[in-house]
Each structure stands twice: as structure tokens, then as C-alpha cells.
């Protein structure tokens, strides 16, 4: 698999028997927990905010256009407990990121796993059980 910077890597598959993600602030029904999307791109911004954090990632599509995807996780206290700190995803960081996409097709997902490609460090903002 090519790991060219900002190249799009996309995979969606059904997860038989998948259980619902745990969401505390609001329901997570806008996300499809039976599907998973994995993309490679470059961090545009890490919004480390309550009650949810958003990692914005610029992904280059096959036609050369760029789509900004938003990956949603819990707020800073949970992120720190999951060993995901703001400095781990500085703007410009190359990442491979995985989550459950939105049902309505907008480019956003419930973030379950991130790999920082500069050193292949893995991050699990919802715990390893949600992403393996």
C-alpha cells in the first residue's frame, strides 16, 4: 500500500455483530457503527475541545481535489486518559486514521484509531477494544 503523503486510502466493510459505540454527550446514531473508514492524510487542525474533540485531516482524492475529513472523539480529559494529547497531532502531521463514518455521507467519522506515520505510533481515542 502506497503511503504517499495525503494520498487517499479508503476502505469500508460491514462489521457483523458490531455493538454500539459509547457516546456520552449525545447519541452516536449519526455514525454507522457497522462500517469503518480508513484514510491517509495530513492533519489540518486538532480541535481539542469539550464535550468532543475533532481531528481535521486533509485527504487528497484520486482526482487531485482535497477533502477535509473530521474525526470525532471525546473531550480532552478522556483523550488524555487514552494517551492522545494535543501535541501528538500537530498541523502537518501525516496520519492514517480510522473511524465509523456518518450515515448521511458527510466526510466525518467517529474516530477509533490513528497512526502517526512519522513514527508509526498508534492511538486509540475510544480504547483499543473499539478499534481492533
Amino acid at each position, binding site marked *: 500500500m502506497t503511503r504517499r503523503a495525503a494520498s487517499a486510502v479508503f476502505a469500508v466493510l460491514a462489521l457483523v455483530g458490531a455493538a454500539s459505540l459509547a457516546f456520552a454527550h449525545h447519541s452516536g446514531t449519526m455514525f454507522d457503527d457497522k462500517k469503518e473508514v480508513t484514510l491517509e492524510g495530513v492533519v489540518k487542525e486538532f480541535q481539542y475541545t469539550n464535550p468532543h474533540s475533532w481531528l481535521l485531516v486533509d485527504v487528497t482524492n*484520486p482526482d487531485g481535489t482535497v477533502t477535509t*475529513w473530521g474525526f470525532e472523539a471525546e473531550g480532552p480529559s478522556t483523550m488524555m486518559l487514552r494517551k492522545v494529547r494535543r501535541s501528538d497531532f500537530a498541523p502537518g502531521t501525516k496520519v492514517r486514521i480510522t473511524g465509523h463514518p456518518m450515515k448521511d455521507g458527510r466526510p466525518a467519522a467517529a474516530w477509533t484509531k490513528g497512526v502517526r506515520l512519522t513514527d508509526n505510533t498508534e492511538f486509540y481515542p475510544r480504547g483499543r*477494544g473499539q478499534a481492533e
Partner: protein
Amino acid sequence: MAAPRVIGSVSCAVVLAAALAAAGAQQPAQPSAADWQRKHALGLQHRTAWDLYLALRAAARGGRQTPPFSQLPDWTGLWMQAGGSTFVGAGPTGIMPKLTPAAAAAVKEGQTLAAQGISYDENLSDCGPPGFPRWLVIPFLREFVVRPEQTWLSSETVNNVRRIYTDGRDHLKPEDAYPLYYGDSIGFWDGQKLVVHTNSLMARSMGRGQPTQSERMETVEVWEKVDPATIVADVWLYDPAVYAEPWHLQRRYRQVPNEDKALRMNYWNCVENPNNEVFKTPDGNTQYRDFTFTPADDQRKEQGR
């Protein structure tokens, strides 16, 4: 948005619904069936929460009000709830709460909607207060500030503080009382246990898929630190609009590792980040409003959607 190129598949195991409470902490032991049964029976022996509170106070020979700091337990640190979030599930012995027909219907409706993938949180979606007793089961960080004259039980979820007055004051007179999100709580110390009575609660949802509590809801809690990393709350719920007979549950709070002290309680504001704004759809589901990072949404916004 151009369609991304599908170049392969990934393998993954079944996704597990790991509870947030598991973050950084082991799951503590649950109460034994015998212990739960004994406490459940204690609730049934008393017609009202106030009767139970008075019985516990008598058993503590009046309890202690405004004890010196030196006699108070150390509840410092950061804590998270470890355990379930339901008020209508079975106890350790398998006994189910006896719900009123209205409460049972509400639970069934919630289950039906959940099976259809429909859910909306009437309280938390726009950072409204979770209220009490839902406060007992919400996730995220908590801090407990124990002082002689009052104890503050705080939670990061929508910035709340419950004040438990232990200075000998009484509740407001019934004719002067008014509904409160977290109710009015008074208590006493029985050794290292904090015993609390709460009334003046507001009629509102007890949580997603849970019944609606009434203003007649009153509760008794007994809080105790049972080991260096665990605080246990035994809770008795009395609300004739929800429970045909009193219900007992136990919730445990585990201390969160924070060796470098980088972890702090932070303020919540649902409009701090526009990407967190959600709304209730016509079919009763939860949906995000416009994202700041999607041009399609921006176009709809400009069109006055």
C-alpha cells in the same frame, strides 16, 4: 466531494462497546448478591426516603454535623464512575425494579427506538444539566471536596456541583421548596460514611431510554471510601411515578491515574466548537448541524437553511 479510491480492505474484529468508565481503571468488584439483597430489603422496610434517612440517623445515634477536618475521609483526586448507566436494570440477584405502568411504557418505547437506531438526549445534547439522580451514572471526571460543613460532589459533565450540607440545616419547608436540577441535599457523617437525603428534584428524563422522574422523587445515599481507589455510593430511589416500590442500586467511583497531574476538570460548553452542535430530527434522532470543515454545509448555511 470526489469519491475516494477503494484500494483494499482492512481486517478488524468485532467492535466492542467498551465503557468510558474503563479508561485507566480496572473494573471494581460489584456488590455481592447477599449485600445487595440486604440493602434492597432495607429500602422496602421504609415507606419514604425520609423515613429511611431518619432510621439511618437514629442508628448512627444522630450522626455527626460539622465534624473537624481531622475526622473526615480523604476523597481527593479525580474519579470516574465504573458501572452501569441504567435505573431500570436488574440487581445482582436478578430482581428487576417494579416499575409503574407509565415508567415501563417509557422504557419499552426507548428500547423500540434504540432498536431502530433512533436516540436523542433531551438533557445533554445541548449541554443541559444531567440532573439528579442521573448525575450518579454520567461518565467523565469527578472531584469530591469534603469539608466539615458541606461536601461538594462535582462532575465534569456539564459543569455541575452537588452540595451536601452537613452543618445541621434542614430542607426548606415544603411550602417554600421548589424544583431543582440536583435537588436539595442534607446529610450527616456516620463514622467515615456520608449519609445524604435529597428532595426538591425536578420532573425530567432520567436518561436515554429511561423513565421520566417526578417531583416526588426523593433519595437516600450512603457514600464510603472502601479502599484507596474506590468510593462506593449505595442509593435508594423513591418515586411513586417511576417505582411501585423503592429501588436500591450501587455505583462505584474509581480513582483515575494522574501521575504527572496533567489531567484536570475542564469546563463544558456545547457551542464552544460549532462542530459539536446537534439537533433533534423530525423522526426523533440526533444529527449534527453544519460542520465548519464541509463546503456543502456552508452552502446550505448561505442559502438560509
